[in-house]
């Protein structure tokens, strides 16, 4: 019960904090809309037909990932700057549990991106919003967002030790878009990149969302989203414990 209260309180607080940040509004709303527009025009000028909803979903998921990445990367660093990281570490709950609601709120804020690109596509480009499997879409969306939040938690845990989090976040934005095949098929990539795609929740998430929207089997990728999310959740609790201990042992926790 205490854990649930902690998750709810942390989730609400971080959601409010992100809502007041112009940077996150840019990342979660403006940037995805611009990328969606670029993708729409690229598809329109190209020879591939019937791909605008595909682009909308992909650009929205790009925004979900960007928000999760920058917010998860930043949350440890900001707490360091604000001097609250030590207080969090010293509090009774485990660090993983403490930052879980923060990471979930980051991914939830990213959902604005999906909403923004779908609405933008409908209003400006007339992209039809008829979903082939609306119920499965409604299941796949929160499952994907939670899985991304858990993936963000693993990233955040590494930033307890790695102090150049922003640089790593800058680097990881495009590679995950590419390896997850958010707006193009991963079959265009070399075969050796497939295993990388398979371990990324956004890869399974966009597959589930795309099939729920355009038709196809949703349950397979949806199961994989849940499996990948659970795996990242377990890994994050382990990495948080190890990295926290190392940072405390080396006395580097609050060093910026």
């Amino acid at each position, binding site marked *: 019960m205490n854990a649930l209260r902690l998750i709810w309180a942390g989730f609400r607080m971080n959601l409010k904090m992100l809502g007041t940040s112009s940077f996150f509004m840019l990342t979660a709303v403006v940037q995805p809309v611009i990328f969606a527009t670029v993708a729409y025009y690229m598809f329109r000028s190209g020879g591939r037909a019937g791909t605008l909803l595909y682009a909308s979903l992909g650009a929205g998921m790009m925004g979900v990932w960007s928000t999760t990445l920058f917010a998860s990367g930043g949350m440890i660093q900001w707490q360091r700057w604000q001097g609250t990281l030590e207080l969090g570490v010293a509090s009774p709950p485990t660090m993983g549990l403490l930052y879980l609601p923060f990471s979930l709120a980051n991914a939830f804020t990213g959902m604005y991106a999906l909403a923004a690109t779908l609405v933008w596509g409908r209003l400006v480009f007339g992209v039809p919003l008829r979903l082939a499997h609306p119920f499965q879409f409604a299941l796949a969306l929160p499952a994907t967002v939670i899985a991304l939040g858990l993936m963000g938690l693993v990233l955040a845990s590494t930033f307890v030790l790695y102090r150049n989090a922003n640089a790593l976040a800058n680097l990881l934005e495009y590679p995950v878009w590419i390896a997850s095949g958010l707006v193009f098929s991963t079959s*265009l990539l070399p075969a050796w990149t497939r295993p990388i795609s398979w371990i990324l929740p956004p890869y399974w998430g966009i597959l589930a969302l795309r099939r729920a929207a355009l038709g196809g089997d949703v349950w397979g990728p949806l199961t994989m989203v849940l499996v990948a999310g659970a795996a990242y959740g377990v890994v994050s609790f382990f990495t948080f414990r190890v990295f926290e201990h190392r940072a405390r042992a080396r006395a580097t926790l609050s060093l910026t």
Partner: protein
Amino acid sequence: MTTFLRVFFVGGVIAFRGLFNWIRPAIYIPTMLGSPLFQLIFFTKLGQYAQAESTDFYVVGNSVQVCAMAAVYGMTMAISNERQMQTLGPLLASPANRAAVFLGRGVPVLANGLLVSAFTFAAGAVLLGFHPGLDAVPPLIVIVLVTVASCTCFGMLLGSVGLRAKDVFFASNLAYFLMLLLCGVNIPLDVLPGWMSAIGRCLPLTHGIAAAREVAAGASFADVGGLVATEAGIAAAYGAAGFLLFRFFERESRRSAVLDVY
């Protein structure tokens, strides 16, 4: 004149080292080299999937555009971070020539932009089979140089706004993303609606990218002289506007005693 040149070159380099003291290989390589590399791959693969343009179209467009990351963000920070670091007051209290102070900051930023573009072109050659021919390399260097200068001048304008605005990085991020859409980086201008391409033609990059594409396709430098001259004109216009705005905000900040205040 000697003092002007000293403030321009030495002052510019010292200011860069001071304001960007956080740059280390662990930050520079992922941000300034890694991110452009993956941007190039992303848009090239997206273009291939959409069956839109040739690979060379995306290699040239993105390799020129990534200089904006160094130039626009770098120049914005080179000016507006003086305020954030509380060094704006001492800087403006000095009798140094303002044009030398202002323009000198652009030199390291410009060099950095050139390096980022050159790296991305090289990555395009190695990974994506972009081979423009040796004859095209010297004119490409000149075109990229003019384009980086143009983006740097645009960054000067945004940086000057940062002398008063609370959050100039929202504007510079927005400008950077809009450049991807409006400047013909990944979408031919004739595919965009008229009003979008009209805005794109007033921004840095657009004419530089068009010139670079023609040169890469075999045109001579003389053939693209008009495009390069237009890009240089845009650079001059943004540079002049940035300098005027810098002087205006300097005077206004002194008058209303809000220098260094957020």
